[in-house]
């Protein structure tokens, strides 16, 4: 192959081959130099931009008289650092409670309305309760409890604000204020929502005086902590006086209004044993022709024992309440009477409670005679958010046959952690 190509050509090729790398090397040097220059220029420009930015900052800082940066703070572990942002933290704390049950009664007509009166025996969704709690502003805390029954009817069980402090110190120290619709502070049981009942149904006397739904009314109240060596609290509440049971006031009634007083006393007998003594009084006009007075007086006594070393495994609660009421009438003799209950709740293991209650309605006798009821209950409580309860009750009455009733209830709560009332 070499022989067919002329020599000068070969020389030329060789020369080119030698020259090209040299040339390209020189070219590389030039490019490299250019690149370096460019890099330097870039760096300079960067510096200039930075300087400009800083000057700009200094100028605005000087203009706004901004403080120098604060000292570095220690690691603060406050709010959860979720990506949800701060908007969420203004949402109310929400919890939902469900009550599902089943029942069998030997006398359906007698059965309390904890399930539909037309729905005698069998399973039933008793109620769903939605609770929303949040601070309104530094002065008010709001609480809404909406209950939805099996028919889908929504009821504002409670909707109120409370305050311990108002602008200009309008609210004196040791005083609390409550406005809205709420369970009246009469005795112990009336303050409880259905899912907080120690037994599946209401005590007979509470039902006889205040009806199936208890005494809850629009109104306002103040409570005052007395400066006594023990816990002593006075509560006064004024309310609409619409309660079906006590006032029998219809929408047509023109003169309404009821007033309540409650005095609560609480003593620690030891670290594990406490006693609570209370009395309550309520009075209001009823719907009878002459707008006569309806009154009720209540006494309550509660003893609790919970050994602190075994606070999750043992407890005993003995609760008693007596209520006397008098519903005056224009012509007929007044409707009056009284009743009581006494209940014992014993926690014998971490997840188990056994309970008993005696109800006596008719001391003094009511118009329809007297009723006695004995109730026993066994509860499996897997956690503070769920309970499965089985209850039997036996009732005797002056007029009518004795009744046996068995109820089963599942009680569950989801959502925000509710604090537990003592």
């Amino acid at each position, binding site marked *: 192959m070499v022989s067919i190509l002329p020599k000068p050509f070969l020389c030329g090729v060789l020369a080119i081959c030698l020259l090209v790398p040299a040339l390209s090397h020189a070219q590389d040097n030039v490019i490299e130099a250019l690149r370096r220059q460019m890099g330097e220029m870039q760096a300079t420009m960067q510096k200039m931009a930075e300087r400009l930015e800083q000057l700009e900052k200094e100028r605005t800082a000087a203009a706004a008289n901004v403080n120098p940066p604060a000292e570095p703070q220690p690691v603060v572990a406050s709010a*959860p650092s979720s990506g949800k942002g701060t908007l969420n933290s203004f949402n109310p704390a929400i919890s939902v409670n469900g009550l599902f049950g089943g029942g069998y009664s030997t006398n359906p007509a007698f059965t309390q309305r904890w399930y539909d009166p037309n729905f005698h025996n069998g399973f039933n969704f008793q109620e769903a309760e939605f609770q929303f709690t949040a601070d309104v502003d530094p002065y008010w805390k709001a609480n809404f409890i909406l209950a939805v029954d099996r028919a889908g009817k929504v009821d504002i069980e409670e909707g109120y604000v409370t305050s311990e402090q108002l602008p200009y110190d309008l609210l004196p120290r040791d005083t609390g204020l409550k406005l809205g619709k709420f369970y009246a502070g009469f005795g112990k049981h009336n303050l409880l929502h259905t899912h907080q009942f120690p037994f599946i149904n209401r005590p007979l006397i509470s039902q006889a005086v205040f009806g199936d739904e208890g005494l809850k009314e629009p109104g306002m109240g103040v409570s005052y902590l007395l400066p006594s060596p023990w*816990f002593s609290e006075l509560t006064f509440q004024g309310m609409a006086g619409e309660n079906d049971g006590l006032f029998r006031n219809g929408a047509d009634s023109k003169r309404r209004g009821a007033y309540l007083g409650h005095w609560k006393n609480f003593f620690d007998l030891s670290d594990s044993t406490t006693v609570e003594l209370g009395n309550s009084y309520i009075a209001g006009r009823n719907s009878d022709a002459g707008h006569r007075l309806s009154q009720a007086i209540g006494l309550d006594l509660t003893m609790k024992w919970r050994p602190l*070393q075994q*606070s999750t495994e043992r407890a005993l609660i003995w609760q008693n309440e007596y209520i006397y009421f008098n519903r005056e009438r224009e012509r007929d003799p007044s409707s009056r009477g009284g009743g009581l209950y006494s209940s014992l709740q014993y926690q014998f293991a971490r997840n188990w409670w056994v309970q008993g209650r005696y109800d006596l309605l008719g001391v003094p006798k009511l118009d329809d005679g007297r009723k006695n009821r004995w109730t026993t209950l066994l509860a499996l409580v897997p956690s*503070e958010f769920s309970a499965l309860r089985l209850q039997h009750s036996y009732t005797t009455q002056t007029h009518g046959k004795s009744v046996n009733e068995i109820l089963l209830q599942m009680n569950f709560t989801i959502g925000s952690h509710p604090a537990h009332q003592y």
Partner: protein
Amino acid sequence: MKFCATLSFAILLLTTAAARAAEPLAVVTTTADVAAIVKAIGGERVAVESIAKGYQDPHFVEAKPSFIRVVNRARILFNVGLELEIGWLPLLIQGARNPSMIVVDLSSGIAVLEKPTGPVSRAQGDVHPLGNPHYWLDPRNGVIMARRVAQELKNLAAADGALFDQNLKNFESEIATKRKRWEEQMAPFRGAQLVTYHKEWEYLMNWLGLGVAGYVEDKPGIPATPRHLEELVQTMQQKKIKALLASHYTNPNVPKAVADKTGAKLVMLASSVGGEENIKNYPDLFESIVGKLSAALK
């Protein structure tokens, strides 16, 4: 006459003012450990009362009205925070009707362990969404708490500031000296694996360089299933776990059975000041814990 009345009134005013100044600061704390720290810093100048007793599980305190009275009288309240007291403290503060009271959450400034990174659900048991709240079980955190306490007390009673500073200095140096000794005492056991009943010893383990191989509780606050216990016993036998820790308020039946099966020692530790009779202050707590732990791991 008028002058006399004015004078006596002025004297009365002065004396009551003086009496008020001399009155110790009313402080309430949620737990006995915080109370012990406040006492160490405040000394005679504070009257401190703890709501939870030292021998009680601080998760399950009841919001008794008598505590409402205590909170009603307090000038300042110190709590552990991280939702440890969520089941009872809000009711006490609301019921107390004492809006001028200062509430101090001592968890700010603490490097919190076990902050959940993923979503939390009650299916996981009693999880604390803000992280493990048992941080007082590391003496280094005790010092952070004490500094905050001193700062807050000084804000309220500036006249006693020097005393609080001195007490803080003493507290810090006492902890520093003792900590060195405790750490030396526990040094041979660094890296040892233990089993605990509840998830409450993480800060202690973290401080002493100990590992947790498992829990008797399946999920925090939820009693264990037989299957979980079986697995735990196997793990403990495989890893030759020497000690099982439970808090003094734990029912010892289940942990005792597990310990017996595996040959591990059941160590009932006080997790709070007052958990045992001889634990009267914050350093005593670690004296007791370190003593028992080192004996069990030998």
